[in-house]
């Protein structure tokens, strides 16, 4: 039907014009298409975030390698807007034939809790988990507390004086801190949340001595940690990160089991045929375990974590629960 390669955007216009024609042809030869082995035409990979961002970059890594694996073009299409809702909705509403799949991200674990959308992982056929980046707690390199215990006692001693930031209200960073405080039975008002546009402005607030704590993933804080302006206290993961072996987990630091992080995976709409799902899952398993994928992800400092469809589902279940706990703790759950 069309033979465009990965990123030729203007071609999408022509593709849209070809839709009626394609529909006609499909209707005419329905029986023959059913017989052809999947995939026999290009695949669309929807990215719910803007081009140039982290999700776009990782999505394009997957697309490049998947193209090689399936021997069919994989076109990345950015469908942005509404805090990722537009793109996520489009993936879940696509025809479940394996020709439209997409990147699903952390926000999917949140929509239901925040009441922004009814979408959850149950609306999708999860195919592979390829990235997780746990949230870590950072403080001022010189003035800041030496460890999490010291921070906690300071917060308890003078409630409301220390301020934390990392992202908007209800974002991953906010919920991770709300969940951490709640799991230690500390009222949230003891460390008020300062909304910001994301990790970079929050770290700027930390460096300029306007706030005391920043919650963000390790790669995002790397530059400021390297420049000795910020110091990492703990990482909210179940085990230590081999890249940062000296950073304690929350459990090691204070004995409370709390972990939360950003994740990214590939999913298709619900109700995909079993053979198509298997074919895609196998191809994606090879992609994510390919050393080249690891190299690409390392270049942008994204943590690679692989889970097959079953493992991805159970990861999403846990994530859904944990984000629920955090959202309720923050008083944002609807």
């Amino acid at each position, binding site marked *: 039907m069309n033979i465009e390669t990965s*990123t030729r*955007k*203007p071609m*999408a*216009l022509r593709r849209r014009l070809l839709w009626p024609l394609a529909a006609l042809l499909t209707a005419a030869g329905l029986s023959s298409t059913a017989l052809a082995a999947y995939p026999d035409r290009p695949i669309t990979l929807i990215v719910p975030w*803007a*081009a*140039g*961002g982290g999700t776009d970059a990782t999505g394009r890594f997957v697309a490049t390698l998947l193209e090689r694996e399936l021997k069919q073009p994989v076109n990345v*299409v*950015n*469908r*942005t*807007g*509404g*805090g990722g*809702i*537009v793109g996520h909705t489009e993936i879940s509403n696509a025809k479940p034939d394996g020709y439209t799949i997409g990147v699903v991200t952390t926000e999917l674990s949140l929509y239901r809790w*925040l009441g*922004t959308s009814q979408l959850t992982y149950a609306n999708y056929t999860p195919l592979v988990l390829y990235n997780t980046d746990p949230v870590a707690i950072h403080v001022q390199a010189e003035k800041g507390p030496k460890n999490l215990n010291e921070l906690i006692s300071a917060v308890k001693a003078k409630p*409301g004086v220390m*301020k934390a*930031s990392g992202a*908007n*209200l*209800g974002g991953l960073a906010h919920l991770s801190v709300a969940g951490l405080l709640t799991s230690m039975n500390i009222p949230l008002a003891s460390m*008020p*949340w*300062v*909304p*910001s*546009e994301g990790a*970079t*402005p929050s*770290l*700027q*607030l930390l*460096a*300029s*001595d*306007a*706030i005391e704590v920043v919650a963000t993933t390790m790669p995002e804080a790397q*530059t*400021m940690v390297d*420049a000795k*302006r910020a110091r990492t206290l703990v990482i909210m993961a179940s085990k230590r990160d081999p890249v940062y072996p000296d950073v304690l987990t929350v459990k090691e630091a204070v004995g409370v089991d709390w972990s939360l992080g950003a994740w990214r995976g590939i999913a298709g709409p619900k109700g995909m045929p079993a053979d198509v799902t298997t074919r895609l899952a196998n191809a994606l398993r090879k992609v994510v375990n390919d050393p080249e994928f690891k190299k690409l992800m390392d270049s942008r400092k994204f943590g690679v974590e692989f889970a097959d469809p079953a493992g991805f589902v159970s990861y999403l279940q846990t994530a859904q629960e944990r984000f629920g706990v955090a959202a309720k703790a923050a008083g944002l759950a609807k």
Partner: protein
Amino acid sequence: MEHFFSQLSAAFGMLADVQLISVVLVASAFGLFVGAIPGLTATMATALLVPVTFYMTPLAAVAAIVSCTAMAITAGDIPGCLIRMPGTPASAAYTDETYAMTRRGLAAQALGSSLVSSVIGGLFGAIVLMIAAPVLASYALRFSSFEYFWLALMGLSCAAFISSSDLLRGMIALLIGLFLATVGMDPLTGTPRFDFGFTALLGGLNFIPIMIGMFAVCEIMNNLATDSERVRIKEIPKPVGRIFAGIGGLISRYRRNTARGAVLGTLIGALPGAGGDLAAWMSYSLAKRFSKTPEKFGTGHPEGVIEAGAANNAALSGAWVPALVFGIPGDAVTAIAVGVLIMKGLNPGPQLFESQAPTLYAIYLIFIVANLLLLPLGWLAIRLAMPLLRIPPHQLSAVILMFCILGSYAINNSIFDIGVMLLFGVVSFVLGRLGVPKGPIILGLVLGPMVEMNFLTSMAIADGRFLGFFERPIAGGLGVAAILIWGFVLMRALRGHSDKAKHAAKSDM
């Protein structure tokens, strides 16, 4: 120092890239083309470049914008000189002067002196950018949301007060921009604002379709509307002679003008909302005021041309200082550039100077390369200008409109964005007819979210006390300065108003 040289050599390594060099050349050619066509501005060239930069590396994207705008501003002098129609508004200040020179048979001298002074001004601005930006950035690392709030507020004030001569219309434009910036989710609570049920509006209005609409579509409409007034070229000017002949002597005779133009241009460029247009007008009038022979101005005298030519190119580089250090654009071009930088993962701000130092050095070098390239390419453009000027405007408009539609669609594959682009084209055309300037709208749109977010963040940090905005020393100083600016301008406006009222009363009698 050793650190500096290792960064610099890394930057040179980044420049030695075939893709980058070809991007610079193609963007330059595009800039020369757009600049040489009357009615098409450097901002429009940049807006149309954005969808293409999508496929480039971050450095190549910046390189494309830098070289394209430098070429466009310079090439704008050519039609002004030859047929008395400025190619870009930045050349309008001295169009009559260069045209008078052409009529005296001095076309080569006019073009040569404006070209060489442009190169000198551009190089000076680039060097200032190179030195001032990192110094400011290391200082800006101590800035928190309080300081940024005041800075953004001052940026807004500049937009309304400086970029237009008419305070009321400037304020109206600014408020339109600020209103547009509120569309989308509330940054604090995520509550949708002014989305009218469109999911596409939830994330806010997309900046690039608006820019394409406001600059490219609006200018197409303007050109069509004024077509009947447009002078047909009846007499074809004689081929331009050797443009570099005797220019060295001319520039050194007016070295004081060149220097003053370059300094003033850089400073004005760095002010938010004031770009090359204003720099050129101010420099030209300054040149006249301080000239020993002011009576020669307007009769084909190169003095003002040299000063203003240096100023408008210097302003281009100057505008990048606040854009890179604070993310506060100095003019409409850098407003677009800031959007491109963010899209490419190079978020402007002091941290950029720590994490991406070699890329920044490479950007400075691009400024130098682009300005040096002006000499050969500008020479070529002057040779090729006449055939270009004979292209019928209607055919050109059709091609540009096609690129507008393609560009707006390509960014998000969204038909909605095409609608946004067309709507803003029409709205901006109407506003233009009413004399409402575009600059403040763009700055309101870019700085609005910055003011809002930094205000909310600061209020959260200060536990809701307004005094928090004055408690940090730098923030306090900036706050007092901002209030003084507002007070001064308001007072002047009120006095001007009462003066006008008096005049009106007198003339009534």
